[in-house]
């Protein structure tokens, strides 16, 4: 009997039809991928199955019987479990205590610990239930979430973009667990936009585009190109990546050590890095390994860097304000677009004022006409879909706002550009455009530093790669010599001559 069947599910949100007559069926023991770009309606569909959102139309059949879960409790009672992209764990509690919180009072903590060990053993998930969550790596935290989901003995497990926070090795491990789970008859709905993963793991794939089903395929028989056609309606444009012609060192980081600013941060230790004119250097790493701290020190948002540790054109800028650095030619596109890269409620025109102050007249006079002209130019040149220069930043989709922000900095003709997660949450078309713009900038002689958690992106963009792990930076390797395995190993802090302190080893074990 079919485990789950969705028939003509529709959901209308103000201004957007998130799901438009979507049908989908999942068999017992099947790993079923739901593939689509950001905004294709995947999350809404999963929330409907999980009872967090009610559909406007359509029916849900669960083991052949119509159901309408009104909330996640009802869905869980049916046997649906979900692992969210963002974990909901209390840092100060142990793994077992976190799991216990989500269960009823029927079990004692000791019983929960025993159950966790049992389930974890059965599926090859190694976690220590007695460790406090704040000491765990991201991969370990995800395993707790999975164990928590499995303790409910689900018939259907939903995983939302589960690999975005994992090293390649941890991904392999997760896949092993999922295959074992499927072999016991549990169905899995696997949400992702990563084509390779879906082809490697899933038995069946439903492709969504703009709220509609555009394909039902067997992913093992498809190519990345054919899947991508279904997902975005076209093949991703090829990027021209000419050989780099590196010039002089523009940005140099010399033995930068920085104690963490808060208890959840990461301390930087002895970071060394050169970025030359005409090259793109990529920084790979699992999130939370010091990327934020490094970027804040480079951009000037964190002005605590020791003197002499950050040099721009051989001039010490380690204590300079972001505005001084910008005047010297260093521009930065942060990871958070709304609230950091742009003020959500202000118009695009006003948002240019954050980093582009040449429009400010004498005596600090703001000239609205020039602001709007600048914004209009950026909108046109970078193909930003927006109502106009007066549209508030938050009215733009993630991809369009990112195009605007990257455009705002590129248009300033930077000598050094630092970009964090350039295409995070951005659809394929806009990603390609942003990457092409960065490559063009490089060819024009700018020094570019890209920090990203997506290895594919770094392989596509960068000329050299460095890896950040536990606040330390690896030596660089040319992209031509880099492999996923090697970078993955380095992500755990295991690069040649790396002094691996005890804490690092622990994380490595956890990932192994």
């Amino acid at each position, binding site marked *: 009997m079919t485990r789950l069947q969705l028939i003509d599910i529709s959901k209308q949100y103000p201004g957007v039809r998130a799901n438009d007559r979507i049908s989908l069926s999942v068999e017992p023991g099947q790993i079923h991928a739901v593939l689509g770009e950001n905004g294709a309606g995947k999350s809404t569909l999963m929330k409907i199955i999980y009872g967090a959102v009610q559909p406007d139309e359509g029916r849900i059949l669960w083991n052949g019987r119509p159901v309408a879960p009104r909330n996640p409790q009802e869905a869980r009672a049916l046997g649906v479990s979900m692992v969210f992209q963002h974990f909901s764990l209390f840092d100060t509690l142990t793994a077992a205590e976190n799991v216990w919180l989500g269960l009823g009072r029927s079990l004692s903590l000791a019983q929960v610990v025993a159950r966790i060990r049992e389930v974890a053993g059965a599926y090859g998930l190694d976690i220590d239930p007695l460790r406090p969550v704040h000491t765990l790596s991201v991969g370990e935290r995800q395993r707790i979430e999975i164990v928590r989901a499995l303790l409910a003995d689900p018939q259907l497990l939903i995983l939302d973009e589960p690999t975005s926070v994992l090293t390649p090795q941890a991904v392999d491990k997760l896949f092993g667990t999922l295959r074992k789970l499927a072999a016991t008859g549990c169905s899995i709905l696997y949400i992702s936009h990563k084509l390779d993963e879906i082809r490697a793991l899933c038995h069946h794939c439903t492709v969504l585009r703009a709220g509609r089903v555009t394909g039902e395929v067997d992913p093992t028989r498809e190519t990345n190109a054919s899947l991508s056609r279904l997902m975005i309606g076209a093949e991703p444009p090829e990027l021209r990546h000419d050989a780099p012609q590196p010039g002089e060192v523009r940005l140099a980081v010399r033995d930068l050590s920085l104690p963490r600013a808060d208890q959840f941060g990461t301390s930087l230790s002895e970071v060394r890095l050169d970025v030359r004119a005409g090259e793109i250097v990529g920084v790979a790493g699992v999130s939370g390994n010091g990327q934020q701290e490094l970027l804040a020190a480079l951009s000037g948002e964190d002005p605590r860097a020791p003197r002499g540790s950050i040099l721009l054109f051989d001039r010490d800028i380690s204590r300079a304000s972001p505005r001084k650095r910008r005047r010297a030619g260093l521009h930065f596109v942060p990871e958070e677009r709304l609230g950091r890269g742009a003020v959500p409620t202000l118009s695009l025109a006003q948002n240019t004022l954050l980093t582009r102050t040449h429009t400010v007249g004498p005596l*600090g006079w703001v000239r609205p006409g020039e602001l709007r002209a600048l914004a209009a130019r950026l909108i046109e040149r970078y193909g930003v879909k927006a109502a106009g220069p007066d549209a508030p930043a938050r009215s733009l989709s993630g991809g369009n706002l990112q195009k605007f922000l990257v455009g705002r900095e590129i248009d300033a003709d930077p000598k050094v550009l630092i970009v964090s997660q350039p295409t995070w949450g951005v659809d394929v078309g806009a990603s390609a455009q942003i990457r092409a713009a960065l490559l063009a900038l490089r060819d024009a002689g700018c020094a570019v530093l890209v920090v990203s958690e997506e290895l594919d992106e770094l392989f596509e963009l960068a000329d050299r790669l460095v890896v950040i792990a536990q606040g330390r930076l690896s030596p660089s390797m040319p992209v031509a010599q880099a492999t996923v395995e090697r970078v993955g190993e380095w992500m755990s802090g295991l690069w040649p001559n790396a002094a691996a302190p005890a804490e690092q080893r622990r994380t490595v074990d956890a990932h192994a």
Partner: protein
Amino acid sequence: MLTLEARPAPSRAMSVASPLIALAVTVVVGALLFSALGKDPVRGLQMFFYEPIKSGYALGELAVKAVPLALIALGLSLCFRSNVWNIGAEGQFIVGAIAGAGVAMTADATTGRWIVAAVLLAGMLGGLAWAGIVALLRDRFNANEILVSLMLVYVADMLLSYLVYGPWKDPKGYNFPQTITFLKATQVPRLFDGSRVNLGLPIALALVGLFWVFMFRTFAGFQQQVGGLAPLAARYAGFSSRRALWTALLVSGATAGLAGALEVAGPLGQLTPYVPVGYGFAAIIVAFVGRLHPVGVVFAAVLMSMFYIGGELAQSRLGLPKSLTGVFQGLLLFALLACDTLIHYRVRRRKAPAAAAPTSARALRAQGGA
């Protein structure tokens, strides 16, 4: 069933209509309140909405109360837009009044009219210094500005009492806690005969224009607001949060102090323990009802002033308690906050959920698992 549904974009029409709807709600609830108190609601509402505007003299009295409210609220608007929560404008108002009075008392028979400028300037500096304490403690020790500014209100109140009961007490004042009546030369010039409206009105209106220009046409004003709207964006851009803090507090302190000086050197003419009447707190409501916008503040100040006068009239003519003024102020703010929801949401009538009740989940699960 009625449900709230998020709008795709905030409604512009609603952001204009919301204060009007709020006012209408206040009127309706007010009418019910009068009926419940056994008074004629029409006459009750007349006290609040007709009597204060029925003659030139009444309009003048309206302005006398609206000017200090608008001045303080202007400064607070800038403060709140910068995400600095100065709740102690009342204290800055008092210290401004004290400083103004201190200068006014130095006048003698030969003093020229220039003393008025000195009085007002002293008032501004007094309020500025009082708010400066808040800024200093916040900047240096990260002390919460809400608590510090509020507590300084009571310190200022004590300071005022000390002066009027002690060193500044009028020797010929029959031991009443009050200073001498200031000399004629120190009086803020009145605009018309037969009305108490004085120079404060054009000063306030000029400041409205000045604040508008600063907020919306200068880079400094832009930086100030970015710090309030998105602190991370301000840090990313490299705008100084310390400068924003100091600017916000010093400016709002100065406007509150100016209001205090205008009050003692204007309608009051002497310093008494009854100088503070809550303008500093009412101005918080004025700032929000006015949408933290200089022009909006003017309308809100006039409205709030009507409530003050209406409350007094209701007290004297209808025998209603004085707290009615506070009730009306609170009602308006409450209604406005509620109506503001409609800017981002709309009310939709929704069909009742489908009649087919979901089968018991547990029962299904038992079957499915079999």
